[in-house]
């Protein structure tokens, strides 16, 4: 089998706050292969965004990556000096964020912002970079690319802003595009268009996408592989088909049954009791045990490890011998 494009092993990112240590990511391991859509799914505070930022090494004080390694094409990018990392950011690994309104610089026009990365990474001339920017604007299906390139972000709609972000991020043909909730702030029909666009780009450029979301629908419809996170850890991972067909971890099961699909109308759907744990003082043992209907003594005392149950389906649960 081919070596994975990105292999994260035992990543730990902590934030040192006055009220305690916030263990946002506490031992996360995952692999992303070439040409794959990998979904990182979980609720608020599970650490999925921090994982992405850690991969991009965009963690600043008071946060710190305290352990683990991230192998990109076999190279541990956590050990790289900042100058080398800058060559990877934008060129090899790119990232788009949730709120395009906050990510675009309001004082430069769109064409300029899309040209920036190629000028820095490939040393293109301004005019060449501009031409490429206009082409990219067309590729992301924005009509009137010549005109749009000269537009400023505030005249664009939400969908167009996000497309501009995408154009910016793929301008250097990255191998891995991390998308952190790229469609959450958009209307549902626009969401469908953007996801469609991302998948199309991925196919054409053999790019991998790491999609971070809390929406299981998106995962089911676009993902190849998925990892479910809870309280800073990965609790289950595998192919989308396997995890959806046979979710092994009680949290995954609970989440899937929380969605009102497949229930008779106006009946009560399943839900997960309790609330999300605080990341500063998570429960001992298995972090999910206070909310788990199958919790045993072992769950309360010992943290389960992520083990493989055949065919690349991993789960961290004592029920399955974790």
């Amino acid at each position, binding site marked *: 089998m081919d070596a994975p494009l990105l292999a994260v092993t035992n990543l730990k990112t902590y934030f040192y706050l006055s009220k305690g240590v*916030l263990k946002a990511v506490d031992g996360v391991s995952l692999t992303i292969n070439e040409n794959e859509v990998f979904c990182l799914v979980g609720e608020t*505070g599970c650490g999925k*965004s921090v994982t992405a*930022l850690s991969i991009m090494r965009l963690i600043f*004080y008071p*946060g710190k990556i305290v352990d683990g390694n991230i192998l990109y094409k076999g190279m541990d990018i956590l050990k790289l000096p900042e100058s080398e990392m800058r060559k990877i950011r934008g060129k090899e690994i790119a990232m788009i964020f*949730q709120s395009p309104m906050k990510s675009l610089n309001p004082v430069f026009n769109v064409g300029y912002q899309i040209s920036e990365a190629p000028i820095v990474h490939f040393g293109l001339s301004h005019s060449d970079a501009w031409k490429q920017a206009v082409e990219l604007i067309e590729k992301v299906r924005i009509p009137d690319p010549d005109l749009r390139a000269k537009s400023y972000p505030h005249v664009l709609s*939400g969908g167009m802003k996000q497309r501009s972000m995408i154009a910016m991020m793929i301008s250097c043909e990255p191998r891995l595009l991390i998308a952190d909730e790229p469609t*959450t702030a958009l209307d549902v029909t626009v969401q469908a268009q953007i996801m469609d666009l991302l998948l199309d780009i991925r196919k054409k450029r053999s790019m991998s996408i790491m999609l971070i979301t809390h929406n299981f629908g998106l995962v089911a419809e676009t993902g190849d592989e998925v990892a479910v996170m809870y309280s800073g850890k990965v609790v289950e991972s595998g192919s989308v088909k396997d995890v959806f067909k046979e979710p092994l971890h009680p949290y995954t099961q609970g989440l899937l049954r929380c969605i009102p699909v497949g229930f008779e109308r106006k009946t009560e759907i399943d839900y997960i009791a309790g609330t999300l744990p605080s990341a500063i003082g998570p429960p001992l043992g298995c972090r999910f045990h206070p909310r788990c209907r199958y919790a045993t003594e072992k769950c309360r005392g010992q943290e389960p490890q992520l083990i493989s149950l055949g065919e690349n389906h991993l789960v961290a649960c004592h029920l399955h011998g974790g």
Partner: protein
Amino acid sequence: MKAMGVEETVPKEVERKSMFKLTKLKEFCLLLLHYKMSCIGLLVVIGITILATFAPIIAPKHFAKTDVPNKLQPPSLTYLFGTDVLGRDVFSRVVYGAQIALWVGLIVVLVQASIGITLGVMAGYFNGKLDKIISAFADIVWSFPPVVLALGIVMVLGPGITQVVIAIALTSWPTFTRVTRAKVQSMVNREFVLAARAVGESDLSIMLRYLLPNITSTNLVLATLTLPAAIISTTALSFLGFGAQPPTPDWGAMLSEGASQLVIAPWIATFPGIFIVITALGFNLLGDGLRDLLDPKLRV
């Protein structure tokens, strides 16, 4: 724009700080400096308040007690800040002056706030014509020079501290109106106000129970910052002769008296001057600290 299950990119607690690439040392120093400044401010304010409250005990002599044979003496052990033209103890006068300064400042701010906040809430809540009228009125008042109004009042009533207080208070309340109006406008269409209206709450009830409590922090900060301005404005008017009449130990009046003696007895004007600056600075620093402390937590 709708919001669906929005997740912060980074834990809420750290969002603000981690966006800047500060080293641990730098951040620590800045924080300490900031707190130090506000603490200094707090100490100054407490100090001046103690001076004002216990003036009769602290001041060795009564502020009006004259000692003409010892007039224009430089600072000494008996007269810590020296004596003025009539042999009065400058130190005692400065201490008693703190009472006046604080009182004046407080009353001015209270009057400013009452007028300003009331009008501000009405302008922000009712919008439309009322808003335009109030805002225009506030603009006109704001551009009216206090000295002119003071002159007018003094012509009718004669000089005095009260007259100065009235003049300053009546020309500077628009700051409170502007700030309050802006805050109220930002809140009036928020869901909790809509919910209150949906329940059937009256306009007055909404203004008192829902809007007012949410602007107290802003106004508190504004009050701490306008108090020194009030003190300075009143001392200025007193300096010009509109305010306190002798022998009232108003700092501004003392400045005026000492101005003519500046060459031969600089201590008469210098010490009140220093105290004016220290008091104003103290309140400003305290206000800054308060603002930073209250602002992020009470983001309405």
